[in-house]
Each structure stands twice: as C-alpha cells, then as structure tokens.
C-alpha cells in the first residue's frame, strides 16, 4: 500500500510521543538512582512509587479514552475491570506469601479468620505466575466480552449503557465485599510479601515494578495509537459521531464496540495488576461506583480523544488528589465536584481546550491589532 503524507506524519507523531513518554519515566528513574540523597534533583523511593501508581492509572485512562473519547461509549464500570486485574494479581501475591503469614498457615490470613479448611478451587491456579499474568488480561477481557456482547447486541447505548455499567459496578462492589466470595471481604487483599521471590519491601523491587509500569504504559500508548490511526480507528470515530449511519453503511457497529470495550477492559486489568504490588493493597473500596466515575474525570480533564491527554489527566488529577487529601482533606470533594462541572461546562476538550483557548486569545489579540492598523 502506498504511504501517503498523513500516515507518515502520524507515525512520526506517534514515535515522538512514545519517546517523550519513555524519556519522562526514565528521567524519573534516574533522579531516584543517580543523585545523592540530599541533592535537589533526588526523587525519594516513596515519590517514585507514587509516580508508578499514577502511571498504572494512566494505562487505565488510555483504555477509557479509547472507549469514550474515540468511540463515544461512556462506561461507568471501568473500576470493575481494574479490580478484576488487581484481584488476579493480588491472589497470586497472597499465595506467594506461603506460610509466612501471621498464622503460619499455607492459607492466606483472612481465610484462617474465616475458618476455611482448604483453598477455594478458583484460587488454586493463581499459584502460577504465568497463569496469573494471563488472567490479569483475560479475566477482565472475558467479563467485558460477555457483558458487552449482551448489551451492544440489544443496542443499549448512550446513557443507558452508562447507567447499566454503573449498576454493574455497584453489584460487583457488593459482591467483592461479601466474605463468602473468599476474596477478603471489605478488607481486601493485603500484606503482600514478595513477587517472583523478590521482596516487595525492597527499593530495587519497587524500581523494577516502576520500569515494568513505564514499559507497559508506552506499549499501551502505542497500541492505542495503532488502533486509532488505523482504519479501525476511523470506524470507531464514525460510530461516536453517528452510529446509525455507520450501521447503514454496512458496518457491524456492535462488533467494533465490543472490540474496543474488551481492549479497554484488558488495559484496565493490566493497570490493576501493576497497581497492586506497588500500592500493596486492593480493597472493594478502590473499585466501586465512586472510583469508577472518578476515572472518567481523569480523561475528561486531560481531554478525550487525544490519548496523551488521558495520560496527563490521570497523572494530574491523581496528583491533585494526593496533594489535597493530605493537606486539605475537606476540600478534595469540592475540588473534584467543581472539576466535573467545570470541565463539562467550560472545557469539553479538557486541558487541550485550555491551551487552544490561550492560543486563540493571543491570536485574536494579534488580529485585533492588525485590524486597527488596517
């Protein structure tokens, strides 16, 4: 196929962004390792860890952007897929504790409290790291496939889809809270000791996890870029803009939507799996209705349909969250609420719009001056 100018340009752009992303996290990593501890440029282990957490969120935000920004599907249940990935990883980490828990039992501690005799059957395969890694992608993917198949097939779309996914988030949250699910109940999974034999308390392990998150983020970005720049991406945008017309043109909109939904669920699962070992705990509170809708605002703030904006939004909003909840805990919800309202009312394209408006402001000023001179 003949390469036209726009393709070459978009490829260049993709590479540029990917390199920029890479260099950002590599610089962060170097700031953690190279300078002496009292240097101005030194990044503490804690801060590096936090940055890793934000990057995991950014992977999730990429999935949301693909789904919402490009295809126009607003899912208020991304927290579920994040949670599924996180719990898959958490289960593996729980099992790798082995007999080192508080009760010296082969079973995870919470099962000892719940007086379980043996490991539930669905826990058993998570002993294997390879299986767990596959599950991290495929469990959320499969779940999204089944749910998406049912909903897209019956053409549930727009706000209906949002409401149904929110109800799903609520029910999954309720389920994960149940002790009888054998997933740790309200307390979730925690007290992890090691991953693949490396202690999670060590700074070097955390650094490796940071690198893994960074690599995954760049790969996820490349994947999303690949999808959106391909013909498939054009169909997705067309679905967003006019689904009826794309159907009449002979495309099966529901299949495209299902594909994107599964991809975004898998990305959310990967994000969850990277999040757990870095943060050290996963509870139902992190995957319910409120966190799910909060994830939407990351993308809204960053600017939907831009991919890079989703990453910036995820990092930015979470940074603001950490800052506010530790310094002004009462203000955080006001800020978040105002963010929702403000973005929707004044900046539908997020931060991109802010920069565009600033540009426009300057150019208008120039024009005005030009007009006067004329």
């Amino acid at each position, binding site marked *: 196929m003949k390469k036209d100018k726009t393709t070459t340009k978009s490829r260049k752009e993709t590479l540029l962004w990917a390199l920029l992303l890479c260099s950002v996290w590599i610089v962060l990593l170097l700031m953690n390792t190279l300078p002496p501890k009292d240097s101005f440029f030194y990044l503490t282990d804690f801060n590096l860890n936090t940055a890793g957490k934000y990057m995991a969120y950014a992977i999730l935000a990429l999935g949301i952007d693909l789904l919402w920004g490009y295809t126009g599907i607003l899912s208020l249940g991304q927290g579920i897929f994040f949670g599924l990935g996180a719990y898959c990883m958490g289960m593996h980490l729980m099992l790798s504790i082995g007999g080192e828990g508080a009760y010296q039992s082969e079973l995870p501690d919470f099962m000892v409290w719940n007086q379980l005799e043996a490991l539930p059957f669905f826990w058993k395969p998570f002993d294997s790291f390879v299986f767990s890694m596959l599950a991290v992608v495929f469990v959320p993917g499969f779940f999204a496939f089944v749910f998406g198949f049912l909903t897209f097939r019956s053409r549930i779309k727009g706000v209906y889809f949002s409401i149904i996914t929110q109800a799903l988030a*609520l029910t999954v949250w309720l389920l994960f809270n149940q002790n009888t699910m054998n997933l740790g109940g309200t307390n979730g999974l925690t007290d992890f000791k090691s991953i693949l034999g490396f202690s999670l308390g060590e700074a070097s392990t955390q650094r490796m996890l940071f690198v893994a998150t960074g690599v995954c983020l760049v790969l996820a970005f490349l994947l999303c870029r690949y999808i959106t720049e391909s013909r498939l991406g054009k169909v997705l945008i067309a679905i967003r803009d006019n689904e009826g017309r794309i159907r009449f043109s002979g495309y099966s909109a529901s299949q495209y939507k299902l594909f994107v939904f599964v991809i975004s669920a898998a990305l959310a699962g990967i994000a969850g799996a990277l999040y757990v070992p870095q943060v050290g705990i996963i509870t139902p509170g992190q995957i319910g209705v409120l966190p799910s*809708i909060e994830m939407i605002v990351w993308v*809204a703030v960053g600017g939907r349909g831009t991919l890079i904006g989703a990453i910036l939004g995820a990092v930015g909003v979470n940074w603001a969250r950490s800052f506010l909840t530790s310094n002004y805990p009462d203000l955080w*919800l006001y800020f978040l609420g105002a*963010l929702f309202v403000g973005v929707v*009312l004044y900046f539908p394209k997020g931060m991109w719009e802010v920069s565009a408006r600033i540009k426009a402001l300057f150019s208008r000023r120039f024009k005005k001056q030009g007009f006067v001179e004329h």
Partner: protein
Amino acid sequence: MLRTIRVGIALVLPALIVTVFYVQKIAAQAFPRMSTAASMDQLILTLAEEERDLVEKAVFDLGNLGDAKLLPTLEALREGSLYLWIKSDGTRRVVIGRESIVRDEVSGFLVLKAYGADPISGSDGAPLFLPEERLESIRISRRLRIKITPLLNRLRLFSPEAVIRESAATKVGLSGNHEALPLLSKALAKEKDRWVRFALTEAIGLVRLRDADPAVRKAAAETLGQIHAMDSVPTLEARIEVDASGVSEETDIAVKAAVTEAIQKIKAWEVWTRTVETIFSGISLSSILLLVALGLAITFGLMGVINMAHGELMMLGAYTTYIIQEFFVAYLPANIRDFYFILAIPFAFAVSALFGYCLEKSIIKKLYGRPLETLLATWGISLILQQAVRQVFGAANVDVASPAWLSGGLRLAVGIQFPFNRIFIIFLSLFAVGSVYFLVLRSPIGLKIRAVTQNRSMSACMGIATERVDALTFALGAGLAGMAGAALTLIGNVGPDLGQNYIVDSFLVVVTGGVGKIAGTVGAAFGIGGLNKLLEPGFGAIYAKVLILLIVILFLQKRPSGLFPDKGRSIDL
C-alpha cells in the same frame, strides 16, 4: 383423765376452726376495703423490715395482688429509691423518693406515695419535701432483686396501657411459672383488647403446658395450635424433643400427639403469614423505588437529563425534615410536636424544587441534548452537596424521630402486621404518581411540557416559553426527590450518603421502565421491588441484587427501550 382431754380436744378443735373461719369470713365481708387496704399498707410497711424472709414474703404477696398501682412500689424497691420515713410522732411510712433535689442547701427528695406513686402534699399543699437525713433507704439483697423482675411483669398485666399488658403477658407466659396462673386468668377475665387477650390466652396455654394433669396439658396444646401462637413454638418443640437418652419432657402419648399437631398447625400458619409479609414488603419496597424514581423519570424521561444529583436532592429533603423537626422541638409546645412531619413534606418538596430550579438555570440549561455531559456535571454537583452537608451537619447520621402516629402497625391477624410508616409511604407514592399523571397528562402546563419534549423549536414558535417550562419541569422532578427524601426519614438513616444508597436502583427502574413513560416507571418499580423481595429470602440481599441486574440486562435484550416502547418508525441517528 387422758380420755376426757382427748375428747375435749376432738370437740373443741373443729369448733374452734369453724369459728375462726366464719369470723374471718364475716370480717372480710363487713370491712372488705378496709381489710385489704390495711393489709396492703401493712405489707408495704413490712418491706422496711430488717428480717429478710419477712420482706421477701411481703414482696411476693404484693406481687400476687395483681394491682398495677403497686408497680411503682416494687420498681422503686428494685432501684433502691424506696425510703422509710419516720414521722416526728413516731409513725412509720414508706415513700418513694425518685427526684433528688437541693432546697435551702439541704439535699432531699420530693416524696411520692408508695402505693400508686402520687405526690404527697405537705401542709401548705405543695409537694412534700423531705431532707435526706429524715429518710432511711430501704435496701434489699441482690437475690431478692432478681426475684422481683418476674413479679413486675405480673403486675404489668394490669397496667392501663395495652402495649405494656401485652408484652407482660408474653413474658409471663414464656417464663411458664405456675404461680402466675391465677393472675393471668384474672387479667383475661377483665381484658377487652383483642391482642392482649390473645397474648394472655397464649400465656395461660404456655403455663398450663406444664400442668400436672395430662388432660389440661392436652387442652393447652390444642388451644395454642388453634390460636396460632407463634411465640410458643420453641416451648412446644422443647416439650416433645427427645434428648440423648431417648426421653422427652412430655411423657403422655395423647399430649405428645396434640403438641405435634399444634406445632404443625402453627407452622402452616407461619408459611401463610410469611407469604403475606413478603407480598407486603415487596409492595412497600416497590412504592419506595417508585417514589424515588418518579422525579428521575421526569428529568430523564421528559427532559433527557441524567440527574445524578437526584439522590442528593433527596438528601436535602431529608435534612429539611430534620431541620423542621428541630424547629418544632425548640420552639413549639410538645403536644403538636408530632405534626412536624405533615409540614415537613411540602417543605422538603419546596426546598429541593427551589434548589433544582437554580440548578437548571445555572448549569443544566447549558447542557440540553448532551445527556452524558449532564450525567458528569450532576455527579459533580452531588459530590459538592454531599461534602457541604457533611461539613454543616457532620458526617454522622442525624436523628429524625418518626412521629408517634406513624409508629406501630396495622395488625390483621396473628403474625401479620403492616407498619403504619410503610403504609404511609405506599399512599404517598400513589398520591405522587396520581398528581404527576394529572399534571403531565391532564393539565395545561403538562400539555406545554409534553409539547416541549416532543418538538422544542416548534413549541417555541407556538409561543411556549420553553426555557421556563424546562426550569419548572426540572424543579418538579427535584421537588419529588425532596418529598421522597422526607418520606425516607421514616424508614432509614438520615446521613450525607442517603442519596447514594438509592440512586443506582432508581436509575435501573427508570431504564427498565422506558424513557418518558410513567406507566413504565410504575411497572418497573413494582417488577424490581417485587422481584427483590421474592429473591431475597432464598439468595440473600446481595445475590438477589446481582440476580436482578442480570434479569434487567436480559430483559433489555428483549425490550431494549423498556416496558412500554413508543410505537413508531422514529430512529435516533
């Protein structure tokens, strides 16, 4: 000599006994009141004696008199607020000293009569004040204190309040003490209230179940079965339960059969009552869902606005109710305090409607035709409202007391009781649906609302002030939310996250019912509410919820646009 003595004794003793008997009887007939009054005062005075056996006997005698006026006496004795007052002339009197006060720098009590707890008036007519040093506290042993409790229940059988009589009867019956039988029969003979009579009959049956005579036991078991005495099932089962050595408490075969039959009868009745209760609680939950979802159906169905702050508008209504209650408590006399709720409902409607109006004018107005955006913006508003309420009223739940006229319930039969507050909510939601129906489908403003919904620009051309109609419609939806919030104070906690608990469920109702269809909303509310209560006993609350979500998703496969879709060829492109 010995013989004469024997004969003498044989003749004199019966004569003596007969004489004493008759004298006593005549005396009792001649001065009936005086004698009981005298013995009552005597008994009460005995409570102050040193000798423990005497005191204990007096306590039991008092308890078995079956006089409700003795209740305060024994209660005071148990609490240690019974005092012996030795007057200046040396006479002794037992009084109750409950309120400790200080007068002229002397601490003491305003004393009450031991019998009936009426205030004793002093020489000047005012309540008598006695300094502490003139009173001698009557103390009893721990052992006796424990023994008084069942006696109190026996006295409560004669309380003027039916609720107290009923619970006392149940307690006395469950204790199964044979000594209480005469009192129970006496109470039953006087009793007029249906449910107290029931409780007394049950109690007598339970006591007689331990009678020495098998025939009495059999009759008791039969009675219990006949009246469907549900509380007596454990006792009945215990009678025929076989222990490790293969022996049951009940030995008589005929009685055993009667007990078994009674248990079966009661159990069959229980199944029946449980069915009725399930149906009722299904209807109750449905009406709550309907009340909550109705406002949502208006904002979503008619205006296409996803109002995620709907739950918080409900919360505003609930807090308005709280404020009005506090106002009544602080500024109005106690006897009309209970009517705060009647005022609270319109107020809650008004406050939420006003807030909704402002919300529409400031934010929603700019977002018509962009439902996903309204969803996000209203979610943001809900977060702000929650946090604001949390900071003003505190994060903990506030206390909203249900008015007394809505406490209790309508009892239709044994074991079937419909709480008044639930009935009230059912009627309120019916009223709300009815008014919305008339407002939207039968009134001039409703005509305008529907016109704007169907074709905004055409309506504007026809001279309808579409912006005003929008704002008023949104205010109506918000007001309904406020009203629902006020109603919810009757059955749930009032806290900053009140709205969050209902929002997802109510949206599910609206989606299932179909957009813009009041009939659909009603149908979906009853479908989801009923299904919820139907599944709950078998699967537990959480799994029932999961199942309902699955059912809704599968239902939407069949009917993607709800219960009652529009017939037509329109398609949203």
